[in-house]
């Protein structure tokens, strides 16, 4: 039995029944991770000691009768999520060395079901980026083609799962940061309904937009993780009352909307073709589709960035070198000390967004930018929800182009922002959205995105299950990675 090709569900079943030993599982994945990481740079931290200790503890608990839905399952966690006792950097110099004294809610819940954190994955600094090139610890390389980006900002998680360095991973999605790397790395990535998964412990970039979500090979693992991590926790005030449940269903009678704005200029034709293939596939399985229009979609990218940058400028104010992270220079007067450590500790893109965010919130500009963006957001939400009154799901490409080369877009911020053009709308509206592998273009993975109404992750998973059952895209393993 090749542990490295098991799904999380299979690992949990085998470990729970005693057929598989947690330490063996952990050692197999640690070995793989350590061997491949120099090439791929998926992990910022491989938490060997912690993983081994957790495996030993789990063995003891199992003997005492403990049972968990994720018993023995190694998990790769995006380095934006707080893990007690394991360094958490957000891929930034300013947080180098920061070791949280508490676990994020999602981590606590995963641990309670027996999961084992094996490492913290690379990302764009503070989740601000679409390629995982903007990390203080170097870019993550796409396992499908090492000279290409893995997508962002959860590129490390996407690459880790694609390269089977972990069976499942957690990412975070503010404007597409789970879905984009999922598409680029040929894995499933789910951004849950806003408020479905606790953000307590998620290091904030843009509070009103982001969610933690699973990145997996198969849809069942995605559902399993979602079951464990979702639900109110008494620490995150923005959570909804929602008990996630999914049993695989078919897509007969499913009505799919295909908005033309997402297939127009700027979208690589070959990517569009792959997505259409998936839509037609669903149709052959009993779904129906219809072309629609979401006119306000053209403003969603600007709307998203104004809101995200504004919130970010405030969320990142706490990094001043006093309480944690990179130290500020005590010999300077306070405003100089803060400006210096923040100027040196933050990367360029982060600084750009903080400045623009300050600008959008500042006196004299607040009405024209931030407040207007919030009103526009309401209008976009209403327009999308009206579509979802008539349809069960909306289908689009996850990104307008396949994985680009490392260095190709990174010098031009706007060109990098374009990678999010298909994904931000789900964050603005708060609806769940999923990317499922939809095939390859020149050997590079392409993802199809589906969005559904609030709390209808079940529809998205059923759609993805249908696609996976009918295609074998998700079962391919990158050649770079084959032993």
């Amino acid at each position, binding site marked *: 039995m090749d542990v490295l090709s098991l799904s999380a569900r299979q690992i949990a079943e085998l470990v729970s029944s005693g057929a598989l030993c947690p330490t063996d599982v952990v050692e197999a994945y640690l070995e793989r991770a350590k061997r491949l990481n120099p090439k791929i740079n998926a992990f910022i931290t491989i938490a060997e000691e912690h993983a081994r200790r957790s495996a030993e503890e789990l063995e003891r608990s199992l003997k005492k009768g403990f049972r968990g839905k994720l018993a023995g399952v190694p998990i790769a966690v995006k380095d934006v999520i707080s893990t007690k006792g394991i360094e958490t950097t957000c891929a930034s110099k300013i947080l180098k060395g920061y070791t949280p004294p508490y676990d994020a809610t999602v981590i606590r819940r995963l641990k309670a079901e027996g999961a084992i954190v094996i490492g913290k994955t690379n990302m764009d600094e503070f989740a601000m980026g679409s390629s995982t090139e903007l990390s203080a610890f170097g870019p993550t390389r796409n396992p499908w083609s090492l000279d290409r980006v893995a997508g962002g900002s959860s590129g490390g998680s996407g690459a880790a799962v694609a390269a089977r360095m972990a069976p499942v991973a957690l990412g975070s999605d503010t404007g597409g940061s789970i879905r984009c790397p999922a598409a680029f790395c040929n894995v499933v990535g789910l951004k849950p309904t806003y408020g479905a998964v606790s953000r307590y412990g998620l290091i904030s970039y843009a509070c009103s937009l982001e969610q933690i979500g699973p990145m997996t090979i198969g849809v069942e693992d995605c559902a399993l993780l979602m079951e464990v991590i979702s639900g109110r926790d008494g620490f995150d005030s923005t959570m909804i009352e929602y008990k996630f449940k999914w049993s695989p269903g078919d897509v007969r009678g499913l009505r799919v909307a295909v908005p033309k704005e997402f297939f127009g200029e700027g979208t690589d034709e070959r990517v569009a073709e792959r997505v259409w293939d998936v839509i037609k596939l669903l149709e052959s399985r009993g779904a129906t589709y219809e072309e629609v229009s979401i006119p306000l979609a053209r403003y969603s990218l600007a709307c998203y960035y104004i809101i995200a940058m504004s919130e970010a400028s405030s969320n990142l104010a706490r990094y001043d070198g006093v309480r944690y992270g990179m130290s500020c220079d005590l010999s300077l007067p306070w405003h100089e000390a803060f*400006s210096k450590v923040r100027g040196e500790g933050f990367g360029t893109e982060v600084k750009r967004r903080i400045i*623009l965010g300050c600008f959008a919130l500042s006196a004299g500009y607040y009405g024209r930018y931030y407040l207007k963006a919030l009103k526009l957001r309401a209008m976009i939400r209403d327009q999308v929800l009206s579509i979802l009154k008539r349809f069960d799901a909306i289908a689009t490409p996850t990104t307008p182009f396949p994985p680009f080369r490392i260095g190709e877009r990174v010098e031009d911020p706007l060109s990098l922002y374009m990678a999010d053009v298909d994904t931000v709308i789900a964050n603005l509206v708060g609806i769940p959205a999923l990317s499922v592998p939809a095939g390859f273009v020149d050997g590079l993975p392409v993802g199809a995105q589906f969005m559904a109404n609030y709390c209808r992750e079940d529809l998205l998973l059923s759609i993805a299950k249908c696609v996976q059952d009918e295609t074998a895209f998700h079962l391919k393993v990158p050649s770079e990675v084959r032993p």
Partner: protein
Amino acid sequence: MEKSGEIRITPELLDHLCELAKLRLTEDEKKAFLRDLNRILEYFSIIDEVEVGDVEPAFHVLGLSNVMREDEVSGERLTRDEALANAPHEEEGYIKAPRMV
């Protein structure tokens, strides 16, 4: 106060924003930022095409309200060691910050 017409970030405005955000930029960074930030702002101006009128701003997309907790102490407290473990400078249990005057 609403501004109309083209908005640009001038060197003075950039300095002011850096002061507000407590970010020290090098001269090279300032030059690059003036270029990049204004390009991005230009892109943002696409929202000028939309009439928003009296629409209620979406402060919370899902319209949640009244989320509150009971007034009960519980165990999330950190020990002093945990609270100070990441502090670069501490003295007698206090966290050290630069002088304020």
